[in-house]
């Protein structure tokens, strides 16, 4: 009877959903890996890739003649679904499960390598990622991940920055098209900016940040981060200009509280204490309540369904910052988890009334695992964000204290800063070159202008040598 399943599945494919016979034929749970493989293949033939993850993992976990085919079918489903939670975790836990074809072996290596990198097994990650040949379609993704591993300070033997830079340059030199290739190149460009900043090559770092494509997912991050090399290089106007862009309503789906700290730092460095305080007060007013809400969420550990609903239910999403919800939902692993959940829900709808049997049970099983894995990702990011926000608010407090101290020193020195600033002219705005358009900044936010602003600012320090050194 079970030999008929793939045929039934194929027939089901031709119609809108699986035939009622599919449920009837799969009422009996698979007892052997071969039966699990057969059920998984039938589900795939019926375009139920999500549901097929359950029996295929069962079949792929057991050594035997069905294992190789099961791993291959599993990787096929992973590729079609762009699944990033369940299958990579399974492959990492079952290194003996190997596909037959070279192409799928490379995919398995990549998924294992990424999983090892994510879990901190950097040595294993490095060895797995290095085994992906440069001519592979997955080489760019692997080289980018390898660069991150090589630059990780936790790497056994220490980070190898130059090797990491070389890997990133190789990724950027790859001119492959497609959405994935563009995403990887944008990530590599951002990583290059970060590494060069770490190496204190500020000019190259700023230039690398500037090259992150404007349509990339990570562009808002690059926009604020490139303020760091500019500030350290003494380009306060450039740093303030790029930070100004992070207030643009077009970037409302980005979560960039750190931009305000850097902005306040630049202003503090110029002894513009009133402005520093204004920025810090805005940061605290905007993010302190969120920090408290996130801390409560991190501590309470809501159920998986609740955690996922934080991103999927508009009512619950309001508990997060307007930028945090979309930013979390766009995180690749979270986005993949949410996508899998939607797929499984759609498969459940398609199976509909046909499903009393094993199909629904498989769907339930996979859905529960996907829910848990997605919730774990969300929770991890909430914990991480809560900690980061707490740190930022502490930094804001420190900066506020330093601001008060600076103001006190001015009072002690009998300096009236308002008079001092009024007496000092605003340095002229940069004029740019002949190939630059100059636009006033008057409250309008033009998408094409974001990231091109520059600022000029007065120095409120009593004497240049009294400038606080915070760079």
């Amino acid at each position, binding site marked *: 009877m079970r030999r008929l399943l793939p045929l039934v599945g194929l027939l089901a494919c031709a119609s809108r959903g699986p035939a009622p016979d599919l449920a009837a034929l799969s009422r009996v749970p698979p007892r052997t890996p071969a039966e699990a493989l057969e059920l998984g293949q039938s589900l795939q033939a019926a375009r139920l890739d999500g549901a097929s993850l359950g029996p295929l993992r069962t079949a792929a976990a057991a050594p035997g003649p069905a294992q190789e085919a099961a791993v291959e079918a599993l990787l096929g489903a992973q590729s079609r679904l762009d699944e990033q939670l369940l299958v990579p975790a399974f492959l990492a836990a079952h290194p003996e499960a190997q596909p037959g074809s070279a192409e799928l072996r490379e995919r398995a290596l990549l998924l294992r390598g990424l999983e090892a990198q994510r879990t901190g097994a950097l040595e294993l990650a490095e060895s797995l990622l290095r085994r992906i040949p440069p001519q592979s379609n997955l080489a760019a993704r692997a080289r980018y991940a390898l660069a991150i591993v090589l630059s990780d300070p936790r790497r056994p033997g220490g980070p190898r920055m130059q090797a990491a830079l070389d890997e990133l340059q190789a990724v950027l030199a790859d001119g492959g098209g497609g959405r994935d290739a563009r995403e990887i190149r944008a990530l590599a460009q951002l990583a290059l900016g970060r590494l060069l900043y770490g190496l204190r090559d500020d000019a190259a770092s700023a230039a690398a940040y500037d090259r992150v494509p404007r349509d990339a997912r990570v562009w808002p991050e690059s926009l604020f981060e490139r303020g760091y090399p500019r500030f350290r290089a003494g380009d306060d106007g450039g740093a*303030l*200009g790029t930070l*100004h862009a992070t*207030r*643009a*309503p*077009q970037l*409302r789906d980005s979560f960039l509280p750190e931009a305000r700290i850097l*902005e306040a730092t630049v*202003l503090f460095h110029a002894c*513009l204490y*009133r*402005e520093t305080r*204004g*920025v810090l*007060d*805005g940061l605290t007013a905007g993010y302190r309540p969120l920090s408290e809400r996130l801390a409560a969420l991190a501590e309470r550990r809501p159920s998986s369904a609740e955690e996922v609903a934080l991103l999927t239910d508009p009512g619950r999403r309001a508990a997060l910052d*307007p930028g945090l919800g979309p930013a979390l939902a766009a995180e690749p692993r979270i986005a993949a988890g949410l996508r899998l959940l939607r797929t499984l829900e759609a498969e459940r709808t398609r199976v509909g009334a046909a499903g009393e049997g094993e199909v629904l049970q498989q769907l339930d099983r996979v859905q529960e695992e996907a829910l848990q894995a997605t919730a774990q990702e969300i929770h991890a990011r909430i914990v991480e964000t809560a900690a980061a926000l707490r740190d930022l608010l502490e930094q804001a407090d420190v900066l506020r204290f330093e601001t008060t101290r600076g103001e006190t020193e001015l009072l002690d020195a009998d300096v009236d800063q308002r008079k001092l*600033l009024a007496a000092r002219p*605003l340095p002229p*705005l*940069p*004029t*740019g070159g*002949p*190939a*630059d*358009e*100059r*636009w*006033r*900044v*008057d*409250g*309008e*936010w*033009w*998408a*094409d*202008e974001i990231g*091109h*602003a*520059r*600022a*000029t*600012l*007065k120095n*409120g320090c009593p004497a240049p040598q009294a400038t606080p050194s915070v760079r």
Partner: protein
Amino acid sequence: MNLLGAIVLAAVLGADPATDPLASSPNVQYRVLEPKPFPDALRHELVISPLVPQVGSTFTTHWLASLTYTFHATEWLGLRVQPFYVWQAQRSRFSSELLSRVRQDAAAASSVMLKDGVVAAPEWTPIRGKFTAFGGTVRYGFLLFAGAGVGGTEIELKTSDALGPATYGSTGTRLVVTGGAGFRMQLGSRFTVRLEVQDLIHWGSVTRVDGCDAADLQILVDQHTAGQVTGAGVSGQCNVDAFRGTTAGGYDRGNDLGVALGKVNEGGSDTLQVVGVYLGFGVEL
């Protein structure tokens, strides 16, 4: 930034959610320095305006086509050379009514029409801006230009009637002065659309028709009356052939001689303007 852009942007984006505490600070100021997505400097632009109507004419109506080549020396300044061809020039409706109803023709000097020509002018773009449309940003420039050139002219000798189409006589090449203003929009990385109003101004009286002055025409009229336009005794620049033979409709061109002589003898002068609306489509190379 411009008003239209602000309206569109406000409609699209709604209120700004992020309050900027630095916006009101006298100690910090911002400016956008955006690399031009469509730089003009040292680039060549070709614009074709295939269908240019004359507006506001009294005695004549022109429909012309023009091809404008512009060398953009800088982002703000260019030099344009614009050949044009008048593919339809005729007596205006008002002038035709005058002639048919009260047998009153416009003065000869006021009836001269442009035939073709070429003008050159520096082009200045003092104002640039942009607006949002169709999900993108369109750059535009407001431009002014003024220059001069030469143009061939002609005058109607016979109106279009049952005997055939209208006939014309050349009134020579004249100085043409031009001036205009318009908007230029930049699309994509190299395409442009221009909407300009341009005035082509020319002067003068009708002293010759097809190169023949009053004396030549009198001789030819006499010859025509005698039965044959031989052309004997006229000046070398008089194009006698223009008054020989018949048109496709069978109209004897010799009949134009009397009208031509009348126009030449009429005297007087006028300043004539061909104000056209030029919608052009261009490419920048």
